[in-house]
């Protein structure tokens, strides 16, 4: 059976300390997958040094590095990574089998990237990570915030998801084309859920949820979403809905 060709879409902002370990974890996955990481340095200061990615077992995972000259936000970096992964200069003939979004800060596990890609290889168009079904150490404050986000997504998009804001998700070739992100910052998660809901209705996409583990550390919690961040997301969504051109 040929290896699953996986494009990992990875935005990074000032993650130099944890980035190498994240890429190394993907390198340890073995021969079942041919992984190319599309790493977008979203205006980090200092910029990501390409040499730091040239670690052990370097043959196992390809890395394409692009840089935003200024910090635009995670949504913008993901969109740049998506476009790079679809660019014929970097994609294999016929494209990748699965496109997986993954955080650079070490919260996500390599084995879960593989599990999501395998769900796509098995016929799903969209595979969403579910941290509550997996072995995650979700703090209670974050659990409450994510519960509220789940209700909001249900009302705003009509999608009944177990884990609405998990950055670990995978798309098949049919789905990735419809996942254009226009929200630069964290509101892109809701935008993606909305795009999934719309594509499910229009194109009959097959959506599944896959148990994954998310590792919370002090550093990732400090950088992650907070209650004030949730308000900022809400403002972004309302502004985008009423003020942006929806072409």
């Amino acid at each position, binding site marked *: 059976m040929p290896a699953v060709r996986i494009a990992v879409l990875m935005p990074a902002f000032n993650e130099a300390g944890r980035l190498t370990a994240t890429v190394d974890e993907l390198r340890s996955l073995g021969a079942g997958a041919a992984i190319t990481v599309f790493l977008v340095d979203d205006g980090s200061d200092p910029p990501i040094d390409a040499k730091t990615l040239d670690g052990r077992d*370097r043959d196992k995972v390809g890395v394409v590095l692009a840089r935003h000259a200024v910090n635009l936000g995670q949504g913008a970096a993901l969109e740049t990574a998506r476009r790079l992964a679809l660019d014929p200069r970097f994609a294999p003939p016929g494209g990748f089998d699965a496109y997986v979004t993954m955080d650079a800060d070490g919260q996500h596990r390599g084995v879960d990237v593989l599990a999501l890609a395998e769900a796509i290889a098995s016929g799903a168009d969209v595979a969403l990570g579910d941290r509550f079904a997996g072995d995650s150490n979700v703090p209670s404050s974050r659990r409450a915030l994510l519960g509220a986000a789940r209700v909001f997504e249900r009302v705003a998009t009509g999608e009944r998801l177990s884990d609405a804001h998990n950055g670990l998700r995978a798309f098949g070739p049919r789905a990735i084309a419809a996942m254009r992100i*226009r929200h630069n910052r964290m509101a892109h998660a809701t935008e993606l859920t909305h795009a999934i809901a719309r594509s499910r209705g229009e194109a009959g996409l097959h959506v599944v949820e896959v148990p994954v583990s998310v590792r919370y550390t002090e550093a990732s919690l400090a950088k992650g979403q907070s209650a004030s961040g949730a308000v900022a997301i809400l403002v972004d969504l309302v502004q985008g809905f009423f003020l942006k051109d929806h072409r």
Partner: protein
Amino acid sequence: MRPEITPAALILLGLLAALFLHDLTSLEKNRRLMLLQLVVFAVGGSLIVYPEIARRLAHGVGIGRGVDFVLYPLVIWLVRESLLTRRRRLEEEEKTTELVRALAPAEARVVVAPAHLSGGQSSGSSASTTT
């Protein structure tokens, strides 16, 4: 109609005069804008010194207080300006994003070549392939 010179009116008139003098020095080359500002300030100043004007106009259109006659259209105009400004800011942000994104792929580098870009097999010697 008698002028009503209250302490508040004096403060507001002082503020108008200070703003006008400030703009007079910074916008001196834009005479048309200065003229427009002079007209707006003159109308505003007249309404402050002679509030009876606003009162009579308000009663004429069925509004209770003169100050409401001035405030209602002002609030509507400010809200509209705020929305248009936010919209313009979003448009500018979209343009900046596309500009930054246009540069990113052009300067993207294959740091470690994946198998499909290294002739079908992974190669340890193909780092830093600039495309």
